[in-house]
């Protein structure tokens, strides 16, 4: 450890302690000391992450490693309580439901002709889960491919039809737009020609842009045809449309990112330092 880093460490510790004491004095109630510690800790972690922007440093490393450990455990606990206790147990066992004090729901699959109780149906994921854990046994590791095959297969099937319906068929039909909006002949069209945002020309222009944009965008994605000649021209128009899309998307997103920073600074200035209301 260099001398400078020791000085920094001491300063950080002093600042932490000072903040704890000052906050504890400002807070009221039974848990004043505890709350002061927690808010100081949260502020310390916030600043530790921000310090990464300057460069990698021990405080960031500390925050990063803490974050990894805590978050891994957090999601494990959430998974256990919400999936196993919340969804699996109520379907398979009445006495376990009572143990965890969740309402037993039972139920099953009703195919009209026969009835398959969840009590047995939901043994399938348990078996698959145990097969997955066979990875830990070196000789039987290959059997863990079964649950993986199950997962990939089911979701390939489900995604296939879902995407076909929602991202595909519906999007195609949404691009069926009339190119002639409010059409009363050429005379009317040219006499009213203007760039007014809600005028006839702009409405028609928008529809044309959408239609051509979709077609050219799709042409850009053609893999098995060389992009030359008119096809190449269309593909070039397609990439421009995509670039406008990405530019717009980027510009729009900046807004949200600033809000997040405002949120953090509000915490630092408000909850921690108490200088804004």
């Amino acid at each position, binding site marked *: 450890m260099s001398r400078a880093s020791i000085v920094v460490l001491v300063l950080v510790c002093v600042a932490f302690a000072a903040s704890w004491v000052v906050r504890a004095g400002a807070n009221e109630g039974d848990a004043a000391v505890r709350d002061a510690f927690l808010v100081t800790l949260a502020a310390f972690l916030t600043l530790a992450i921000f310090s990464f922007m300057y460069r990698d440093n021990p405080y960031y490393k500390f925050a990063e490693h803490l974050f990894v450990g805590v978050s891994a455990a957090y999601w494990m606990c959430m998974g256990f309580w919400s999936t196993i206790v919340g969804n699996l147990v109520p379907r398979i066992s009445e006495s376990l439901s009572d143990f965890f004090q969740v309402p037993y729901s039972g139920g099953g699959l009703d195919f009209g002709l026969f009835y398959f109780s969840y009590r047995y149906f939901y043994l399938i994921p348990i078996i698959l889960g145990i097969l997955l854990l066979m990875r830990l046994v070196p000789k039987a590791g290959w059997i863990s491919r079964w649950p993986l095959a199950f997962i*990939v297969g089911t*979701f390939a099937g489900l995604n296939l039809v879902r995407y076909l319906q929602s991202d595909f068929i519906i999007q195609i039909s949404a691009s069926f737009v009339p190119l002639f909006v409010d059409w009363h002949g050429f005379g009317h069209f040219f006499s009213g020609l203007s760039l007014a945002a809600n005028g006839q020309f702009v409405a028609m222009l928008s529809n044309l842009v959408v239609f051509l944009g979709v077609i050219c965008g799709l042409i850009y994605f053609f893999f098995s045809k060389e992009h030359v000649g008119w096809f190449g021209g269309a593909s070039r128009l397609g990439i421009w449309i995509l670039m406008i899309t990405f530019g717009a998307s980027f510009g729009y997103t900046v807004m949200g990112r600033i809000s997040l920073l405002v949120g953090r600074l509000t915490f630092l200035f408000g909850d921690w330092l108490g200088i804004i209301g």
Partner: protein
Amino acid sequence: MKHKLKLILVLLLFIWGTAAAQSDTAPGDAAIAAPSIPPPAPVTNLQATDTDNDHGHAITLTWEKSTDDGAGANAVVAYDVWRWYPLEMDVVDSLRQDLAATRDAVRAFRIDLPRAERALEELQEDAAKLNTTRFRVAVPDVPGFTLTVDYALSKLADTIAYMRDNRPILMSRIKPEQQELAQALERLTQAHAAFPQNGEWRTIGKALAGATSFTNTGSKDQTSSDFFPDYSDLYYRVEAVTIDPAVRSEAVQVGPVQSKGQWFHTGKIPVVLFVVMFLVFTVTFVQLAKKGTDLYVRPLSGIEAVDDAIGRATEMGRPILYLLGIGVATEVNTIASFSILGRVAKRVAEFQTPIIVPCYDPIVMAVAQEVVKSSFLDAGRSDDYRQESVFFVTNYQFAYVAAVNGIMLRERPATNIYMGKFMAESLLLAETGTLAGSIQIAGTDEIAQIPFFIVSCDYTLIGEELYAASAYLGREPVLLGSLKAQDWAKAVIMVCALMGMVATALGWPAFAHFFQVTG
């Protein structure tokens, strides 16, 4: 303070008596007023059919409006819908409620008995500590209401005794009650067939004036209170009602009708057609490719860059970082990334460059380990494979980023490859990668994140290209065949869009209507 919890149990006792209570509802006697307006005309052409495209348990009624639906003194304001219920339905209902009550009671006992016992013990301990039983404890939720400890103790003891005595009895009742319910359910079909004996008409709903249809649905769950029996003869009546509820048309009756599930949802025919189209295209072109037909694919710069990037890493003697993103193994983008990882890992094994694969999801990690391992095996370098090169980081987006950013600055990989699903972390990763001076190749189908990759990575695969990448890298004719099929589907779409536009311009809604998917 701490006696509060215990006292809940005492209160439980007071409530207990109501456990098996049943309530009778007497039908309200509506005052019979002399009709001041003439009754409206009844509905005509009433039809009852099984609701289409469902799993059963529903009947749809349709009718033509009463001629008085519209205006006039006796204008129809609503249509009352009635269904004939055999009395057996009530039997089923009450049996179901009994069973539920018994179950609840058993469960309550199972949970509350140990709590009551504990509470009794604690209360006794407290009393012993204070050496008196002459204090009062507050009852929660009832401000200002307190009980003497003596009273609370005796009540608790009574509760415990009551629970102990009754639990076995209650438990032994569940089985027979279940059987009884099952038998009653079996009798339902017969009871419905006995129309009009042993049953009565009950109102099941209202359709507002102007409506010409009504759907009567219920649950498919036999244990639910609104269970709707399939394959049973059902009868319906519809009456037109005026503003004065006593003035109504004569009832029109329809039946018998049975509900049942359909094996095919006709509203989804367009989807089926597209599935079949895809299947035909894919199989055809894959067969063609297998026969050796030469299929052209245009070069993708992002893909070509992968090889160079691996070469560069080898020259510099630095590792390659491969990220599968934050998708789980069910998502197709993650699966596409597995395929790309397989190809990349094979090259990496050939070049003997180290590879680092930090994973976001344990299942993804398991698959990735499998993929990398067999790629090394294929390259004939299974000895070089180290399992710790593919590892789990954490299951939370930003913690994952924090850790990967650390890896980037500390391990200084020569090349970062991002393939799969990326959300907000895209820019955090890519900017840190730029800072570390790595060559970066990205590919994602998250539209919102593509711009960030475009601005900070050297090469970016846009949307669909991610799915094509594995076929490109694999260079197997079969996979290229499926790319060709994809292009044909694209051509079909463009033709459809063109035709759709023409159809809209000419005012033919039928074409657009075909693309309507219901359900």
